[in-house]
C-alpha cells in the first residue's frame, strides 16, 4: 500500500526493479515485471522537467534539497515545485519505480 509522501526529509533512489535510460532527450523507464523488461507493453517516459527531478534521486538528497535546487534553477515558486515534485514522487512510488533510502 502506498502512503502519501508528507515528509520532505525522505530520500529516494531509483528502484532496482526498473531500467532507466535517456533516449533522444526523453527519459525512458522500463519496469522489470516478473523478470521481463517489456518495451512493447510496459514503457514509461518522463519529459524534461520530470527528468530533472529523476536525475536528483541519487539516494543522497532528500526531497527538501531537491525542491530547493529546482527552485533556484527554474522559474517557478517553491510551492509550485513542491507540489509537482510530491505529485511525481507519489506516482513513481505507486509504480514501485523508486525506493526509499532513509527517512532522516
Amino acid at each position: 500500500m502506498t502512503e502519501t509522501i508528507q515528509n520532505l526529509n525522505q530520500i529516494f533512489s531509483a528502484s532496482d526493479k526498473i531500467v532507466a535510460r535517456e533516449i533522444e532527450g526523453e527519459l525512458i523507464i522500463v519496469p522489470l515485471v516478473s523478470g521481463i523488461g517489456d518495451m512493447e507493453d510496459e514503457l514509461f517516459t518522463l519529459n524534461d522537467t520530470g527528468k530533472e527531478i529523476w536525475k536528483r534521486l541519487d539516494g543522497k538528497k532528500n526531497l527538501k534539497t531537491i525542491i530547493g535546487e529546482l527552485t533556484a534553477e527554474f522559474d517557478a515558486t517553491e510551492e509550485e515545485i513542491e507540489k509537482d515534485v510530491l505529485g511525481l514522487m507519489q506516482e513513481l512510488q505507486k509504480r514501485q519505480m523508486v525506493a526509499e533510502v532513509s527517512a532522516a
Partner: protein
Amino acid sequence: MPKFLPHSFVDINQEKKEIPFCSPQLIELMQAVHGKGGVFRFKANGFSMAPFIKDGDVLTIAKPSNSYHIGEVVAFVRPCFKKLVVHRIVGKKKDKFLIKGDNSHEKDGNIPLNNILGKVIRVERNKRDVFAGIGLGRGLIAFFSRCGMFPSIFFLPCQILRVLRLFVKKG
C-alpha cells in the same frame, strides 16, 4: 531561467515509444535489463527472418549465455556496424558462430560469442505464441539455410499459396 512546467508534466506517460530496432539505444536497454537478471521483450522489424519471424513480431530475448547451439535464433551486434540483428546460428567453430537470416542470401559472418546478446525464447504474433522456427526442427532449418536453400525453398509454396488465395477470392 528555464520555465518549470505546470502540474500536468508530472504525469508519467505510458506509451508506445518507437525506438528504432537497430539503434544503439535499444542495445543498451537490452543489456541493462539483462544486467538486472531480466529477459527483454520488444517488437522486431524487418523481413530477414521470414517466414519464421515476421515484421512486427514481438520477441523475448534471454540474457547472454556461455554457449549457443546451431539452430537457435539469437540477437547480436554486427561487429562493424554496431547494429542489433536477430538471425539464426547455422554453424559453429570454437567460440565463433556462423549466423544467417533465414530469408537472407548472405551470411552475417563468424560472430564472436561476446557479440551475442542472448537467444530468442519466445515469438509472439497477434498476441499469440509462435513456435515454428525456434522449437523442434530449428536444426533442420539451420541446415537448409546454410546450404542456401532458403529463401528459394519457400518461393514455390508461396507462389502456389498466392494463386490459391486468388482463386478463393474470385470464388
